[in-house]
């Protein structure tokens, strides 16, 4: 839910970890 997402985004450490994971996933897709 939107509320759950807001909760996650409230935590800076969690937000950074999420971005790092998504960046790695994107890099993996790019490299094939």
């Amino acid at each position: 839910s939107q509320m759950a997402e807001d909760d996650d985004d409230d935590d800076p450490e969690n937000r950074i970890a999420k971005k790092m994971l998504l960046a790695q996933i994107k890099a993996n897709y790019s490299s094939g």
Partner: protein
Amino acid sequence: KETHVLQAENQKLFTEFVEYCSAHTEDCPEVMKFLHAKHAKASPEFLASVEFRNTLGRCLTRAQARRTKTFVYINELCTVLKQHSAKRRPTVTAV
């Protein structure tokens, strides 16, 4: 024999971690797929190790205690699994 026990314990803990985190990362299902991929690529020796059991146990306990940090512990586990990837390129030591 002990290795098989550890392997089974670790598999159970990993499943528990995945089930817990999947419920809290519904907006990003690709993250759990990524974790599964890293787990699949990790060396069998590491997957049956005490080190992996300790890491899993710690991540699961902390993730359950601090729901707003779910991605932090998924990221930590992915990093550890990546460090023990079976497909890691060997470091060049000979000149």
